[in-house]
């Protein structure tokens, strides 16, 4: 939950950027943006931009970290120094350490890691512009990058945020909404079986409000899912 403000965030049913409560920002997805990576993608939700690169599966060093029964998934979420209003110092913060962990857990259920014992799959996410919902934007980029790398997947992982502002349930919070929301919910799921793989929540909500936000998330998630698939198809068409 964010700071308090006197300002109204929803006026005549519209959000300050003109969106309906259940409307996504403009979304762009592009696969194959980093030539050196085994897989990569850039995803933007409005002014939030994330780029993800996947390296691997590759042999894990040092050897004593290898696991004989499975590949290891490593994720790093990182913000570029120029991605935020006040320049961010390089290096991991407590926030980015936590996000790296929940990102890994959000992606892991989608992967057949057991097929690549002794290896590591490295997923690196760089936030180039931060205007709210950075972690879910990063997870979408990572999902596409993994698919682009040819890592076998049960399903794509679709991510977006939901929340409540003033009295209204909304989705896809931008930076200002993130600051002044009553609650926000970073969310990721695999659409095919509707399995939630990322779920966090900050703020104040009743169980019923949470249910209602879930509905919006699953619905809008379907749109993002189609866009992911289209972005992957587009690469092969080119």
């Amino acid at each position: 939950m964010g700071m308090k403000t006197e300002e109204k965030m929803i006026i005549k049913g519209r959000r300050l950027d003109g969106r309906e409560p259940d409307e996504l920002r403009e979304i762009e997805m592009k696969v194959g943006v980093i030539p050196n990576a085994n897989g990569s993608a850039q995803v933007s939700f409005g002014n939030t931009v994330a780029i993800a690169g996947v390296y691997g599966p590759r042999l894990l060093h040092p050897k004593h970290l290898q696991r004989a029964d499975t590949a290891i998934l490593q994720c790093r979420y990182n913000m570029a120094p120029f991605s935020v209003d006040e320049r961010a110092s390089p290096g991991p913060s407590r926030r980015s350490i936590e996000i790296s962990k929940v990102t890994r857990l959000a992606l892991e259920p989608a992967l057949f890691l057991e097929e690549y014992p002794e290896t590591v799959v490295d997923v690196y996410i760089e936030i180039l512009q931060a205007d709210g919902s950075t972690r879910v934007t990063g997870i979408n980029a990572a999902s596409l990058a993994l698919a682009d790398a040819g890592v076998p997947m049960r399903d794509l992982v679709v991510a977006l945020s939901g929340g409540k502002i003033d009295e209204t349930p909304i989705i896809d919070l931008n930076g200002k909404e993130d600051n002044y929301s009553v609650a926000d919910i970073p969310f990721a799921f695999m659409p095919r079986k509707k399995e939630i793989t990322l779920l966090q929540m900050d703020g104040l909500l009743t169980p019923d409000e949470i249910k209602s936000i879930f509905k919006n998330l699953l619905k809008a998630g379907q749109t993002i899912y189609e866009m992911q698939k289209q972005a992957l198809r587009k690469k092969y068409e080119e």
Partner: protein
Amino acid sequence: MRPDYILKLLENEERMDGRRMDEFRKIKVETQNIKKAEGSARVKMGNTDVIVGVKMEIGTPFLDTPNMGILKTGAEFTPIASPDFESGPPGEDATELARVIDRGIRESESIDLEKLCLNEGEKVWKVFVDAYIINHDGNLTDASALAAIAALKVAKIPKLEDDKIIRDVFEKDLPLLHTPITVTIGKVADKFIIDPNREEEEVLDAKLTVAVREDGMVCAMQKSGSHGLTTEDVEKMIDLAIKKSKELRKLL
């Protein structure tokens, strides 16, 4: 072998220590047992043992909240607590634990931070909440969060003289508005359990941590574990967490 056995038990709604699926281990909450802290609590949930100490210091407010005190939450997995913990800076799990405890307190609007302003834009109280794991036998989150709110409830603001803190002389209680309680629900196969011990934690598919306020508002959630959950799962887990939070709240 052993994990398989524990798993089989759980699938039959049985637990290795004979508890029901929705039963806490024996819980003991002691407060004010750390003399140097402005507030403290030690919580034992079965063999899990956590101390939380609250320290009050003077600091500068953040630019965008010039009239509010500051909350800082830390968690240390001291190497005494488990053969798997190592010396060194907090790892991923300790960092996550600290942040989850922090969110429960912060998002419930538990501490009345505006009352901790001493001089707008210049000087405020900083409240340090430090969770110290003494023995790790599972469910660190619920135990630590319980110790945190118990410590905050008994915490006092020390006296100030010429901007110097007079330790051991207190002016008033730390102003609290709400008491969040954190309950983690585990899922294994299609069953839900609470308060898993460490061996049980290892066989769980997923967990959902839910922080609940005394007015029934959910104020924080965090999913963990390597498997997904459906929205139906989550909704059931939230309901169960709200229900069990009432038991824990009685211990405060």
